[in-house]
């Protein structure tokens, strides 16, 4: 009797229901040998209503134009990592839609981002997708040039331009802020600081991860046949694991993952690994769970003894194995890192288009950008960020790999095959979803209160920016 009563009480408050009869993520993590830090052991969920969300945002090209007018020019997005522009004179061209910026290291501690347009007759100063090093930006058309600091260097045939006041012809800049080794830009001169935008709670989390001490070991681009927001939302919940990634479900607490929101621009989930999915309760043993563990960089886990001792959990054994293998493989000291940080999938969204995965087993970054002219396509990137070698050297960031449409993620050099297969499974659903929405009689999508809160939270922010300009 008491279980039923408890469940009814629990379900009465909207958004309060959780996966029945299963440990919560916090309960799973509390059993670990090496305890997790504060940023893992906290919760931050707020019910946000249960109305459907309108689908015009995914299928109407006019909505995409509004995003280019009102959302992309007023939000913080990362252009590159500091390691892409390590020396004075280095630059990296970042594009969003039709906008293009030359992100430049002007001095050791001074990075600026200029609009990539000659102030004479508008030629792009540096081609999109390029990076390099220079002492000045010279236009290939008539030779006007600018210094690294953005001030005008030379107007060819200056005598013909008495109306050009050099002081007014510096390259226009956008806001730049550095965080965790990322170079963020914002086209809105009046935007809040990045710290204000992301909020104090998240700022404490990212400080703990020290992402500035990592480097890019793998960087993959793929054009996805779906709206950028659909692309992002495919990764905002573990609810889809059972149906889309059944091979993972055997060792993933999918339906009892934890979901949190922080302010306007940040949300996350924690999805624990090394434990059985609630959907499969009773069908597999702890040994099965250990044997099926596939998440993460399994290239580091070859040949270990995987027979569990009496009373030992799969999760604890995986944490122990991973700790040892990663220490050896990456030549770093992980004694201060918790079992949860080693094993679990932590997925954060930074509005509008960045995902950070600060865990050790899946140390990734995702970036999503809309195709400049087609709302039905998006540019998806995956980067793996690994700890720097202990000797203090910094390898060069990996060269991006561009996959063709229809090409498997497993074909990207440096991509773990198990993880590449997971990404293929996600993207296979996306085209069907884009087309399904375009064929829909129903004008909205329906979202789960708890497991799909990140989707709702994200779209609320999208609405606020897009409507603000209306």
């Amino acid at each position, binding site marked *: 009797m008491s279980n039923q009563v408890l469940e009814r009480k629990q379900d009465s408050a909207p958004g309060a229901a959780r996966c029945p009869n299963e440990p919560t993520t916090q309960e799973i993590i509390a059993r670990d040998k090496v305890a997790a830090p504060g940023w893992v052991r906290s919760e931050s969920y707020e019910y946000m209503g249960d109305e459907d969300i309108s689908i015009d945002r995914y299928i109407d090209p006019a909505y995409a134009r509004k995003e280019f007018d009102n959302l992309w020019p007023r939000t913080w997005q990362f252009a590159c990592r500091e390691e892409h522009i390590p020396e004075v004179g280095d630059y990296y061209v970042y594009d969003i839609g039709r906008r293009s910026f030359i992100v430049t290291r002007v001095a050791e501690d001074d990075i600026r981002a200029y609009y990539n347009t000659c102030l004479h007759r508008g030629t792009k100063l540096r081609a999109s997708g390029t990076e390099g090093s220079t*002492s000045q930006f010279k236009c290939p058309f008539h030779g006007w040039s600018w210094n690294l600091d953005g001030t005008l260097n030379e107007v060819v045939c200056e005598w013909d331009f008495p109306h050009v006041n050099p002081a007014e012809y510096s390259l226009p800049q956008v806001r730049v802020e550095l965080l965790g080794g990322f170079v963020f830009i914002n086209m809105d001169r009046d935007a809040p600081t990045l710290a204000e935008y992301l909020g104090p709670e998240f700022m404490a989390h990212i400080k703990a991860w020290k992402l500035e001490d990592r480097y890019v070991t793998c960087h993959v681009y793929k054009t996805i046949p779906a709206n950028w927001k659909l692309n992002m939302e495919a990764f905002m919940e573990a609810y889809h694991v059972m149906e889309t990634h059944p091979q993972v479900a055997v060792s993933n607490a999918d339906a009892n993952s934890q979901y949190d929101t922080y302010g306007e621009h940040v949300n996350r989930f924690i999805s624990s690994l090394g434990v059985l999915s609630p959907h499969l309760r009773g069908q597999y043993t702890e040994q099965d769970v250990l044997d099926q563990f596939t998440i993460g960089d399994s290239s580091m886990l070859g040949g270990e003894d995987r027979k569990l001792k009496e009373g030992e959990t799969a999760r604890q054994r995986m944490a122990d194995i991973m700790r040892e293998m990663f220490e050896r493989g990456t030549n770093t000291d992980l004694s201060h890192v918790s079992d949860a940080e080693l094993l679990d999938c932590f997925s954060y969204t930074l509005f509008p288009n960045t995902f950070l995965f600060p865990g050790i087993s899946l140390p990734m970054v995702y970036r999503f950008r809309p195709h400049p002219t087609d709302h039905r396509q998006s540019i998806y990137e995956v980067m793996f960020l690994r700890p720097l070698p202990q000797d203090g050297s910094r390898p060069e960031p990996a060269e991006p790999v561009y996959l063709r449409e229809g090409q498997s993620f497993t074909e990207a050099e440096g991509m773990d095959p198990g993880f590449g297969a997971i990404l293929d499974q996600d993207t296979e659903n996306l085209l069907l979803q884009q087309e399904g929405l375009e064929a829909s009689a129903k004008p909205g999508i329906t979202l789960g209160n708890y497991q799909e809160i990140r989707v709702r939270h994200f779209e609320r922010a999208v609405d606020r920016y897009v409507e603000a300009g209306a």
Partner: protein
Amino acid sequence: MSNEFTRFCKLAEVPPGGKKALRINDTWVLVCNTRERLLAVSGICSHQARPLFNGRVRNCKITCPVHGARFDLETGQALDLPATKPIPVYEVRVVDDWIEVCV
């Protein structure tokens, strides 16, 4: 172009991450040590015939410092506007601690 290799410089003068430009007869040659390989290309950009020497080399690609065109150091292929034509590439070998180039 002959089939003969000419001495370029001592191997020690082009350490990993380094590069060196020299004139062999009438040809500017740039040798780069990138990704544990020695690659030799023309030292002059195919876009407007300006020197490539100070271009940044990364992942077997070089970016011209003048207008930012990039070239693949293995094939000489132009990768970005404003360049559209390739630059010549040359065979490199090491003999007795000397880098030799076939121009």
